[in-house]
């Protein structure tokens, strides 16, 4: 007969075993691989139920966060960035290259003269917080069309001017998100020029994914067929360094 005390002792030891076991499992590369397979499942399921052009909600001015906190790099701080900032980014250029027929080098003025989209959207950080802000920018699809994207291109990579832990920040999205109507290269925020903590002079808005996908301080956009050869090969800084999901729709 099992006594109540026996059950309690058994339960406690099972709990301790569970804890130690979970940490050991967490270290196991093959177990992590099984957990990671849920990311593809989630992406396919969300893409299945979501129209490719389904819009993230757009809010009214009255709904905006009084203060929009910044996250990640607050200032790239490099001598080059400092110099560009001092010149109001007049010398900054956005390079668009990789699998494109017409590589581009665009000034901030040229980007601002392209068709403008303004959207008030909710920014969801992977940490759990949300902030609502107003973004002004040019749809990424127009820039890619101007560069004549190759049919071989499958991903768009955003190379950034900031570094974290000594490594350059970068991000990538696929063409469904790249040509989504709300995916813009934002040069303005809350009716002002984009400020340094939010990614001046140019940042990505990819509204159906979490905040770390919204690359700041962009200097180069590269169209590629595969993410394998770029930095750690997983498609982004946090994907490479922390095992964050490349598809951050949830």
């Amino acid at each position: 007969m099992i006594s109540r005390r026996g059950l309690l002792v058994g339960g406690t030891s099972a709990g301790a075993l569970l804890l130690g076991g979970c940490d050991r499992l967490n270290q196991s590369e093959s177990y992590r691989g099984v957990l990671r397979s849920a990311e593809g499942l989630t992406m396919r399921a969300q893409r299945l139920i979501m129209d490719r052009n389904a819009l993230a909600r757009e809010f009214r001015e009255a709904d905006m966060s009084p203060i929009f906190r910044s996250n990640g790099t607050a200032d790239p701080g490099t001598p080059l960035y400092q110099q560009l900032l001092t010149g109001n980014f007049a010398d900054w250029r956005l390079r668009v290259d990789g699998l494109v027929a017409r590589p581009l080098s665009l000034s901030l003025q040229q980007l601002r003269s392209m068709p403008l989209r303004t959207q008030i959207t909710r920014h969801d950080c992977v940490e759990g917080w949300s902030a609502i802000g107003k973004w002004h920018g040019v749809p990424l699809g127009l820039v890619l069309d101007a560069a004549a994207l190759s049919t071989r291109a499958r991903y768009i990579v955003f190379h950034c001017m900031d570094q974290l832990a000594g490594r350059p920040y970068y991000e990538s999205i696929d063409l469904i998100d790249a040509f989504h109507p709300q995916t813009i290269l934002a040069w303005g925020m809350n009716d002002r020029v984009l400020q340094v903590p939010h990614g001046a002079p140019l940042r990505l808005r990819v509204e159906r994914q979490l905040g770390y996908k919204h690359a700041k301080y962009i200097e180069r956009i590269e169209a590629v067929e595969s993410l394998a050869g770029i930095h750690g090969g997983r498609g982004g800084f946090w994907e490479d360094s922390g095992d964050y999901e490349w598809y951050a729709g949830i």
Partner: protein
Amino acid sequence: MDAPRTAPGSAGLPASPDERQEVLRHRLSTRLWHWLNAVVVIIMLMSGLMIFNAHPRLYWGHYGANFDPAWLELPRFPGWATIPSTYDLAGARRWHLAFAWLFGVSTIIYLLAALLNGHLRRDLLPRPRDFAPGHLWQEIRDHARLHFPTGEAAKRYNTLQRLSYGAVVLLLIPLLILSGLAMSPAMDAAWPWLVDLFFGRQSARSVHFICAGLMLLFILVHLAMVLLAGPVNEVRSMITGRFRLPPERAA
């Protein structure tokens, strides 16, 4: 999959020689889901606490971050309560979002099975008489004095079991799943009604946390009741399905 033995609420078996009747208390689908959940729900709770640790503040409405007023701010949960045990938001998300699939899919299968085999109607949906104040009060008093049903009355879920299991299965778990999905920016674009159900993403996050707390409370009370009601008989009935009816108390 279920042998035509006695289930809660149907006619009893003939009395066994030792006068402690055995009845089929739990169907296979219930037992499988129960033991799956014994693992999955614990992992969801512990990995969820690690995710919460990344920003241990809760808000109401659509937005909420450090400069906005939080209705709840907690210190970070300690390592023994979280998966992984040291700070690792990405790792916790991998656990949480993988096991969420198991949790969601198994819940749907269980609910379908419960609908088809009558478990839902017979044992989980409350009946009008469950809410009769006199009856409810009597059951609460009996429970508080640890007078559990015996004999014939122990064959079916009593009112408190019906109300608590029904609330967990039909309200708490669906709320947990829906509020979890409402935190997804892609889901909110696909199904805008989802986040409206909770009046905003940060409200959904708060509801998710509160429901997780209620789930933990349910588990603790559930375990206490199993211990008090006779752990061997109760645990065995959830493994084999067979429950030995407690003999009638002498009057």
